[in-house]
């Protein structure tokens, strides 16, 4: 194909087809479950799923920024838990703190932890998977150290923190609003800001990014810092939602976050991924998670099913993303001439 399609101004919308397929699958699952348990198709349930997925969506937006740069942030769940714990402790120590103060604290703590990842990675040229594997343990341990191993329980969690995820505005819970705000921010960053486009550029070709004059180091640090800040925000919401903070909070959740990104078509290899796709990945996990208990799948099966779903979806992704080749031959000639070689017959 040699004629370039003309399209409206803006970055290319990647893998559009794939996203529709994913959306269709999600819809199909929802309908199938709805047939067996009509309660699944109620608005109430939709809101529940949105609510359950909100925190995951926030984390996925952050993780996506990092994945775009060919990195990975394994420390998000630990960051979430540590920030959650620290904010809970702060709220306990300073009950007079207003909500903006708490949110600012969560963002700042999360951002600081994320920045540390970014700094270690860029300053010492370390692979992100190694650094965040290390900080994953370090942050987790820090919760234990900070809290002395004690839990912060329902009655000790700052009332404003507890109220935050539950309050509603225009019929939607604040949790969902928070996620929407983060999504809007991600779209703005990735589509309309230089920084966001440069994350795609760096992920696509890190070596070239340097020649192109992209301040690579700042961009990488930005990605990790934002991932951290969003994890911090998620930590605040998590602690508010479940009204508890303890060492093992959200442990293992990083794999869910990465799985959501991958299902949503964000490439581990960097440079590829869209906010819409990632959101569909989140929705997919949200719907499946909500569906399993409703259709009373034995809890023993849940993990196996989750694994199988990840495998199938990445295999499908890989298939639809496979490039169509370069096509040197002219199309009409190609269709005219059969592929089977005439000479090859006499073997």
């Amino acid at each position, binding site marked *: 194909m040699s004629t370039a399609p003309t399209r409206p101004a803006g970055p290319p919308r990647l893998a559009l087809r794939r996203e529709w397929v994913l959306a269709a699958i999600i819809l199909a699952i929802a309908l199938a479950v709805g047939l067996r*348990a009509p*309660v*699944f198709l109620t608005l109430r*349930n939709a809101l*529940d799923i949105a609510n*359950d997925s909100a925190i995951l969506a926030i984390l996925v937006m952050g993780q996506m920024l990092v994945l775009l740069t060919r990195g990975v942030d394994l420390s998000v769940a630990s960051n979430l838990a540590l920030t959650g714990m620290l904010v809970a402790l702060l709220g306990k120590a300073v009950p007079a703190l207003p909500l903006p103060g708490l949110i600012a604290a969560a963002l700042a703590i999360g951002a600081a932890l994320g920045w540390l990842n970014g700094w270690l990675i860029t300053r010492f040229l370390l692979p992100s998977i190694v650094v965040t594997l290390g900080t994953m343990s370090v942050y987790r341990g820090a*919760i*234990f150290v900070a*809290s002395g*191993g*004690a*839990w912060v*329980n*329902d*009655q000790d969690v700052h009332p404003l923190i507890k109220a935050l995820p*539950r309050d509603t505005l225009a019929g939607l819970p604040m949790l969902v609003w928070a996620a929407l705000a983060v999504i809007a921010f991600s779209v703005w960053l990735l589509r309309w800001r230089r920084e966001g486009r440069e994350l795609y550029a760096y992920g696509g070709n890190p070596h070239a990014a340097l020649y192109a004059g992209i301040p690579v180091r700042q961009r990488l640090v930005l990605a990790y810092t934002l991932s951290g800040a969003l994890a911090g925000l998620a930590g605040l919401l*998590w602690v508010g*939602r*479940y*009204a*508890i903070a*303890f*060492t*093992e*909070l*959200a*442990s293992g*959740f990083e794999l869910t976050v990465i799985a959501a990104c991958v299902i949503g078509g964000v490439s581990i290899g960097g440079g590829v991924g869209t906010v819409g796709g990632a959101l569909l990945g989140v929705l997919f996990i949200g719907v499946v*998670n*909500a569906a*399993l*208990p*409703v259709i*009373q799948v034995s*809890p*023993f099966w849940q993990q196996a099913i989750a694994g199988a779903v990840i495998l199938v979806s990445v295999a499908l992704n890989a298939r639809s993303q496979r490039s169509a080749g370069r096509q040197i031959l002219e199309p009409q000639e190609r269709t005219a001439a059969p592929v089977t070689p005439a000479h090859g017959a006499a073997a």
Partner: protein
Amino acid sequence: ADKIALVVKSLGNGFFDAAHQGAQEAAKELKDVEIIYTGPAKATAEGQIEVINTLIAQNVKAIVISANDPDALVPVLKKAMSRGIKVVSFDSSVRKDGRQMHLAPSSNALIGQKLVTMAQDAVGKTGEIAVLSATAQATNQNIWIGEMKKVLAQPAYSGLKLVSVVYGDDQTDKSYREAQGLFKSHPNLKAIVAPTTVGVAAAAKAVQDEKKVGQMFVTGLGLPSEMAGHVKSGAVKNFAIWNPIDLGYSSVHAAYAFVKGKAKGQAGEKISLGRVGTVTLDKDNEAAMAEPFTYDGSNVEKFAKFF
């Protein structure tokens, strides 16, 4: 001083912290005892084995353990015993050949009974109930659920119908989601019984968030400090727990008796547990400390200060 190690399933758990507090009390009472409070990062048997190996190397006098797996710890604990270390399991037991005695916080039958009666107190004579457990493998959880089923089979409780058992893996978010799933799949549910401290708090939170307070009740085994808020909100009428402070205290006393040779680990033997009293070993060298203690609006505030 004699070193007695208190090995718990994992650190950072309020229940075991309270047991540790009791152990320290016992140590103070017994004068020449030093408590080592330790446990693995994750609640696995492999992690506990690593911890026990280091304790053996330190030549502790006794190991008091709540096991993540009744069988997996046997070989390493046998090794410990062969080097002269006394082994007492508490809370969650070790298989008989891997310890000198087991101190159960309460007998399983008593707990099963208690869980059912609390459910009945909350919802009345009839209604659907469901169980929210920890992991599907947790030994004590499964025994208690089994005992509950036995009790429910009795005619006196025929009105209560156990409709589902779900597993929250002792994770807050999963337990919360499972509780929500129960609301959806069983619209007539009256009570959720969660014999796990993580699950009971998460379920209570879910009831509160779903604005089902008054229609649905959560009960089970929980810590007063975690449950006080939920009792106040009305999502929880009552819950029970043995006193973990007493449990830690008693276990150290029992271990001390073995260290000093006062106890040998024979069936029928009586072992003094200090202020808690005396227990008798059964044929499996097991003993039950006491029946679970019920907490409700009248006393929860008071105990929330302790654990």
